[in-house]
């Protein structure tokens, strides 16, 4: 199956800072998604982004499908951005979405 590598594993930010999270895939994927898991364990959809660039408020994401990676940008971080960020992708010939190990983001006031 698809291997998903996320970096960095941990990120500590001062409120207001910008950051970039990266996700590498071992093979071509579709149905690429970014999620935020809040401290209560809820997995929240951030982006469905098999290719291209999308923006939603202070968050944006870029996927370069031909090079098998995706980036998540957090600008002007806030304490509510804390939590674990997961990316996940699906082999076109498979059913399951495979997740990375996550990036734990801590934003300090």
């Amino acid at each position, binding site marked *: 199956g698809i291997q*998903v590598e996320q970096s960095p594993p941990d990120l500590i930010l001062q409120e207001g800072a910008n950051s970039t999270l990266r996700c590498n895939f071992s093979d071509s994927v*579709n*149905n690429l*998604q970014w*999620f935020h898991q809040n401290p*209560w*364990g*809820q*997995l929240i*959809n951030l982006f*469905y982004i*098999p290719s291209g660039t999308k923006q939603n408020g202070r968050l944006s994401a870029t996927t370069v499908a031909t090079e098998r990676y995706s980036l998540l940008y957090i600008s002007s971080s806030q304490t509510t951005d804390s939590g674990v960020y*997961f990316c*996940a992708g*699906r082999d076109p*010939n*498979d*059913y*399951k*979405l*495979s*997740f*990375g*190990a*996550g990036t734990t983001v801590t934003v300090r006031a």
Partner: protein
Amino acid sequence: GAGVSQSPRYKVAKRGQDVALRCDPISGHVSLFWYQQALGQGPEFLTYFQNEAQLDKSGLPSDRFFAERPEGSVSTLKIQRTQQEDSAVYLCASSLERFRGHPNSPLHFGNGTRLTVT
């Protein structure tokens, strides 16, 4: 509209007990997935349903795990003779479209059921 609903939110079971976890997907969603998330790790795939058909159960860790979706809507994940290693959060997700050869659409996850086996 309503999202994916899971119940119970928390479940404590004594080792050896059977448990049943319920998932109500978003109405009209064809695809339904179960995932298991251990503490500090990413979700791991358990099984996939397309309507009532279980098309992939390759992620079920043992024959103590059983899932069904008899009418193509609500799904139940059953764990028999629970063991301590079954302690995890069990996540259900649904998606509008079929997979494999059909247009894809994003997965929407429920809040999960946290299972603790003592």
